[in-house]
C-alpha cells in the first residue's frame, strides 16, 4: 500500500468547496473594531495637512489617525530583507506616510469604526490637503536627466546596480560569427489573489500579540513585527488560517499588519482590516516591470558562445520585503538549459512613483526565461535555423552541470523532455496545417512556439543566500509526532495557501511510517504550533520542507527501532522496517509494529536506559543546492490577421519536476502556473499613465483570463531524480516561467511569413495588429 505517486484527492478541498474554509475575514473576536485605510490619490504629493475632525465625528467611528499621529509607534521602518549590494538605497518606509506620499495608494490616514462599512464611510470624510509633486512611473524615464526624484534625499532614482560576469565576455562577443541584440519590455503584473489581504490583531493583557493574517509567511511576519514594533518575537503569535492564494504577493510584511496591532493596543479592542479588490490593485505589490537589452553571440553553426543581459528593474516607490532581490532570483537563468560558456548579467534597480514590486509567481525567473527564449527564436531566424534544432544543439547534455555563472544543476534530461514534447505535440501535423493556411492565404493563421527552460527554486541553500546578501536562511523544519495510540501529528514550517501541503505531506509520512494516510494530521500556519519555519514561496515547500519532513520521519523510525530492539532483545541492526512493522531478520514472526513502539515510548515502562519518553522528532533541513526543474513547452495559437485577435488553441507542457508525490496536485500547479504565464503573454498589463496614475484598477481594465480563454492543457512529465532523499523538485512556478515566451514565440511564428519578428507584451489584439501593419507598410 503506497500512496506516494497516486492522485489522491486533496483533503483540504471538501471544507473549501462547501464554503467552510476559515479565512481571516471570517474570523471575528468579541469587540472587534474595523479599520479602513485612506490612500493617496496622487502618485507623488506633499502631505500638507490631515483633518480628521469630520471622520472622528461620523457615526460609529472609534478613532482616526494620520501618519504623523502614529509616527512614535514604530520601533523601526518596514524592513527590506534583501539589500543586494553594500550600497543599495533603502529609504525609510512606514505603515502610514508622514510627510510625502510616493505612489497612488500610499496610506496617509486610518480610521477605526464599529463596522467595516462605517469605517469606509468615515474614511471618505478624511480631508487631506496635498501639494502634488512631479512623479515618474517609467523605469527608463526615471533614470533620465532631470527626472522627478521619488526620494528627494537620495539625489537619484537608482537603487542599486548588481553585476555577475565571467571573464572575456566582450572578446567572446567580438569573435562571434553572429550577434543578435534584442530589447524587451515586460510590463507590470498585478497578482490578484482571489482572497485579498486581511489581518485581525489582538493584544492580550501582558502585551502579547496575536495576528491572524492572510499571509504566506507567518514566521517571517513574526520576525519583522519585532523589528517594526519593538515587541519581542517571543510575545508574538502569527496565525495564517486558510489563505486564498498569494502568488508571492502575501510574502511581504505590509504596513496594515503592524498598524492593526498598534491600533488594537491603543484602543484596547481587536482590530480587523480586509482589503477591497480595488484597494488590492493599488496597495498590494505588483510584479515584473522590467526592461531588458540582451545580446546573444553564436557560431554560424548555431553554437551559442555568449549571453549578455542588462536589465532595468522597477522597484516602485519603496523596497518591500525582498524587492531588490527579485531580479537576482533569475540572475543565473539567462543561459537557462543551454551550455553557454560566457555570461554577463547586470541589473539596475530603479525607484518609480508606483506601487512597490516584489515576488510574483516565478519572481525573476519568468523575466530571465522570457528574454532568453524569445532571443533563441530571434537567433534561429538570424541563422536560418529551425528553432527546435537550435535549442537541441545547445541543450546541456550531462549532469551534474556547472554553469559558466557558477551554480551547479544537479539533475535533468532536457533532451528527453523536448523529445516527448514533439511527440505529444505532433509537430509535423501542426506545421502541415500551418503551411496549408499560408498556402490558402487564410485570414486566421496558425503559429507554434517553443520554450525549453529550466529554473532554480526551492529557496535555498542558506550559505548561498548569505553570499548574495539575503538577510535570513533558506532551511526549513518539520516535526513528526506519534500520539500514544498511534495516530501521527506532523507540524511543518511551510505555510500553504492553496498548494495542498496537508495532502502531499501526509502521503509522504504515511508511506514511510506504514500508517494510513488518514492517520496523519498535518499542522501548519501558526507560530505557536510551528515554532520554526521559513514559510512558503519560491517552490520551496516540498523541495526543502518535504525533505525536513522526511528527515524527521527517519529520526522517528530510528528511535522506534531502538525501542523495538530493546524490547525484543535484539540488535538494532537485526531489525528491518517495512509497512509499519519492525521484523527480526530471519525470524519474521518476531516483530513489533511502530504503533506499539509509539505506545511503549509513551508508557515508558521499558525503554532503553537514558532514553526520553515519547516518540517525536524534529528535523531542520538546509539544502545543499537549489532545486532545478526543467522541461519543454509548446504553444499553438491562431491569429486573426485582420484584427490581431489571438487565440491560444493548444498548450503542451512536458516538465521534469522529479518524482511527483501527488500527480493531480502537480498537474494543478502546472495548470495554474500556465494560466498566469499565458495571462502575461496575451492579456495582463498594469498600466500607469505618464503622471503615475494607475489606469488598470479593476478586472474590467486589467484582464485576468478565465477558463474561457484557455484551452485544455496537455501536460506530461519526464522524470530525473533530484539530489535529495525524495528525488523531488519544485513545481509551483514552472508553468509561469516557461509559458509566456512559448506563447509569444507562437504569435510571431504565425506571422513570420509576413515578416513579423516581434510583438511586445502582452500580445493584445492591437499590438499584434500593429506588428502586422508595420511590416505591411
Amino acid at each position, binding site marked *: 500500500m503506497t500512496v506516494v505517486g497516486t492522485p489522491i484527492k486533496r483533503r483540504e478541498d471538501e471544507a473549501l468547496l462547501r464554503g467552510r474554509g476559515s479565512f481571516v475575514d471570517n474570523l471575528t473576536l468579541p469587540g472587534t473594531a474595523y479599520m479602513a485605510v485612506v490612500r493617496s490619490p496622487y502618485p507623488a504629493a506633499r502631505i500638507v495637512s490631515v483633518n480628521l475632525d469630520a471622520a472622528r465625528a461620523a457615526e460609529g467611528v472609534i478613532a482616526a489617525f494620520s501618519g504623523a499621529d502614529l509616527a512614535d509607534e514604530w520601533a523601526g521602518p518596514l524592513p527590506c530583507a534583501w539589500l543586494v549590494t553594500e550600497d543599495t538605497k533603502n529609504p525609510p518606509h512606514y505603515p502610514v506616510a508622514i510627510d510625502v506620499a510616493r505612489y497612488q495608494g500610499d496610506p496617509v490616514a486610518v480610521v477605526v469604526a464599529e463596522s467595516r462599512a462605517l469605517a469606509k464611510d468615515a474614511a471618505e470624510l478624511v480631508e487631506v490637503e496635498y501639494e502634488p509633486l512631479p512623479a515618474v512611473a517609467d523605469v527608463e524615464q526615471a533614470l533620465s536627466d532631470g527626472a522627478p526624484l521619488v526620494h528627494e534625499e537620495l539625489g537619484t532614482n537608482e537603487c542599486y546596480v548588481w553585476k555577475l560576469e565571467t571573464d572575456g565576455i566582450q572578446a567572446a562577443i567580438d569573435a562571434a560569427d553572429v550577434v543578435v541584440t534584442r530589447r524587451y519590455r515586460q510590463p507590470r503584473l498585478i497578482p490578484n489573489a482571489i482572497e485579498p489581504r486581511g489581518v485581525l490583531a489582538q493584544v492580550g493583557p501582558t502585551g502579547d500579540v496575536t495576528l491572524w493574517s492572510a499571509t504566506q509567511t507567518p514566521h517571517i511576519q513574526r520576525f519583522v513585527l519585532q523589528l517594526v514594533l519593538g515587541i519581542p518575537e517571543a510575545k508574538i503569535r502569527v496565525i495564517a488560517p486558510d489563505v486564498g492564494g498569494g502568488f508571492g504577493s502575501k510574502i511581504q510584511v505590509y504596513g496594515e499588519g503592524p498598524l492593526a496591532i498598534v491600533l488594537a493596543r491603543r484602543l484596547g479592542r481587536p482590530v480587523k482590516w480586509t482589503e477591497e479588490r480595488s484597494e488590492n490593485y493599488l496597495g498590494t505589490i505588483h510584479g515584473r516591470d522590467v526592461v531588458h537589452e540582451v545580446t546573444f553571440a553564436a557560431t554560424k553553426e548555431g553554437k551559442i558562445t555568449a549571453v549578455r543581459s542588462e536589465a532595468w528593474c522597477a522597484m516602485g516607490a519603496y523596497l518591500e520585503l525582498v524587492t531588490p532581490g527579485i531580479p537576482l532570483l533569475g540572475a543565473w537563468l539567462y543561459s537557462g538549459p543551454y551550455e553557454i560558456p560566457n555570461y554577463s548579467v547586470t541589473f539596475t534597480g530603479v525607484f518609480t512613483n508606483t506601487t512597490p514590486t516584489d515576488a510574483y509567481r516565478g519572481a525573476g525567473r519568468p523575466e530571465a526565461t522570457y528574454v532568453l527564449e524569445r532571443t533563441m527564436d530571434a537567433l534561429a531566424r538570424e541563422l536560418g535555423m529551425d528553432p527546435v534544432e537550435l535549442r537541441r544543439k545547445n541543450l546541456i547534455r550531462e549532469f551534474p552541470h556547472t554553469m559558466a555563472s557558477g551554480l551547479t544543476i544537479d539533475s535533468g534530461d532536457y533532451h528527453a523532455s523536448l523529445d516527448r514534447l514533439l511527440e505529444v505535440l505532433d509537430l509535423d501535423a501542426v506545421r502541415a496545417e500551418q503551411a496549408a493556411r499560408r498556402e490558402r492565404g487564410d485570414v486566421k493563421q496558425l503559429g507554434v512556439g517553443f520554450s525549453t527552460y529550466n529554473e532554480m527554486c526551492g529557496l535555498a541553500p542558506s550559505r548561498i543566500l548569505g553570499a548574495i546578501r539575503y538577510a535570513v536562511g533558506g532551511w526549513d523544519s518539520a516535526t513528526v509526532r506519534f500520539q500514544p495510540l498511534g495516530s501521527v501529528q506532523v507540524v511543518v514550517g511551510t505555510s500553504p495557501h492553496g498548494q495542498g501541503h496537508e495532502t502531499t505531506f501526509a502521503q509522504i509520512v504515511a508511506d514511510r511510517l506504514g500508517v494510513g494516510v488518514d492517520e496523519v494530521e498535518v499542522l501548519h500556519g501558526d507560530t505557536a504550533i510551528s515554532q520554526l519555519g521559513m514559510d512558503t514561496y519560491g517552490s520551496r515547500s516540498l523541495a526543502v520542507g518535504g525533505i525536513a519532513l522526511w528527515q524527521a520521519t527517519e529520526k522517528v523510525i530510528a528511535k522506534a527501532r531502538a525501542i523495538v530492539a530493546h524490547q525484543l532483545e535484539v540488535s538494532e541492526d537485526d531489525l528491518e522496517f517495512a509497512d509499519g512493522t519492525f521484523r527480526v531478520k530471519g525470524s519474521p514472526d518476531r516483530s513489533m509494529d511502530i504503533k506499539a513502539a509509539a505506545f511503549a515510548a509513551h508508557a515508558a515502562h521499558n525503554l532503553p536506559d537514558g532514553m526520553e519518553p515519547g516518540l517525536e522528532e524534529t528535523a531542520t533541513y538546509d539544502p545543499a543546492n537549489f532545486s532545478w526543474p526543467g522541461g519543454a513547452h509548446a504553444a499553438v495559437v491562431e491569429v486573426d490577421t485582420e484584427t490581431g485577435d489571438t487565440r491560444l488553441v493548444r498548450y503542451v507542457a512536458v516538465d521534469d519536476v522529479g518524482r511527483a508525490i501527488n500527480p493531480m496536485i502537480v498537474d494543478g500547479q502546472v495548470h495554474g502556473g500556465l494560466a498566469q504565464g499565458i495571462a502575461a503573454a496575451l*492579456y495582463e498589463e498594469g498600466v500607469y499613465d505618464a503622471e503615475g496614475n494607475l489606469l488598470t484598477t479593476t478586472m474590467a481594465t486589467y*484582464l485576468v483570463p478565465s477558463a*474561457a480563454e484557455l484551452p485544455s492543457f496537455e501536460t506530461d512529465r519526464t522524470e530525473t531524480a533530484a539530489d535529495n532523499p525524495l528525488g523531488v523538485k519544485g513545481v509551483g512556478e514552472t508553468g509561469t516561467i516557461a509559458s509566456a515566451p512559448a506563447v509569444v514565440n507562437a504569435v510571431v511564428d504565425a506571422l513570420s511569413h509576413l515578416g513579423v519578428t516581434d510583438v511586445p507584451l502582452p500580445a493584445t489584439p*492591437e499590438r499584434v*495588429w*500593429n506588428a502586422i501593419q508595420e511590416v505591411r507598410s
Partner: protein
Amino acid sequence: MLLREVEYARPASVEEAVALLAGHEGARALAGGQTLVNVMKARAAAPEVLVDLNGLDELRTIRFSEDGMLELGAMATYAQVIASSEVDVARPILAEVVATIGDVQIRNRGTVGGNVCVADPTNHLPPLLVALDARFTIRGAGGERTVAAEDFFLGVYLTAVGEGELLTRISVSPASGAGDGYAGVTLGRHGTYLANAAASVGLDGSVRVVLGCVDAVPVRARQVEERLAGSDFSEEAVRAAVEGLGATLDPPSDVHGSADYRRSLAEVAAVRAVLEAASRRKEAA
C-alpha cells in the same frame, strides 16, 4: 461589498415600480445588477433608492405580439433569450449574440433591458438592436410610449428612458427571410467589445449596418448601406463598400485600444457582419 447606504424597494407591479421611480429623486432601477452593483461598489454611483425589478415576472416574458412582433420583456435574462423557441424561430441572432456575453452566472442574471439601459457603447446589444430596427416600449406615469432604436440611445450611459420611466419591452420584427450578422473583437473571450458591427440584409436587398464602440451611441454606416444597395454581396463588393469607413469615424482611445485601431476594426467587423448577414439571407431564401 461596501455600498453607501441605500434604500431598497421591491415593487410588485410595473405601476408600483414606475411610481417609486417617479416618486424619488435619485431612484435607480435594479435589473440583473451586473453593472449597477459594480458601479455602486466602486461608489461611482450612489442611488438613494434601489427599485428592484426582479419580482416583476410580467417583464420577463418573451412572446409574439398580436401583430406578430417578437417581444422581449426588459427583464428577460440572457439565459432566457438563449433558450427561447420564439427567438430561435424569429430572430436567432439575438440568442447567438447574448450567448457570448460573460459567463453562465452573468447570463443567468443579466437582462436585455439592463444591457441597453446601461447604454455602455461597448455592450453587445445596442448595435444589434439598431440593425434589427427594434422598438423600445417605455412606461411612465403618463402611460406607454414607443421609441425606435435609433432614438433610444442618446449618449454614454444615457437613453430615452427618462426619470420616473421604465423600459418594459423591446420588440423586433421576425426575420422573414432577412439575414443578420454580427462581428467584432472582444476583450478576452467573453468580455465587452473593442469594436463591433451588426448588419441585417433583407430579402429585397435592403441593408442596415450599425457600428458599436466607435461613438457614444451606435452608429449607422449609412454610406456603406447606400453603396450596398443593389449589391450582389460578394466579398469584393462588400469590401469596396466598406472601404474608407474608418476614416469617417471618431472612436475613443483607451487602455485597450487606440482610435486608429478601432477605425480599422470597425471596417473589418462591418465587412464580416454584412457578409454573414447576406449569406444567411440566401440560406433563408
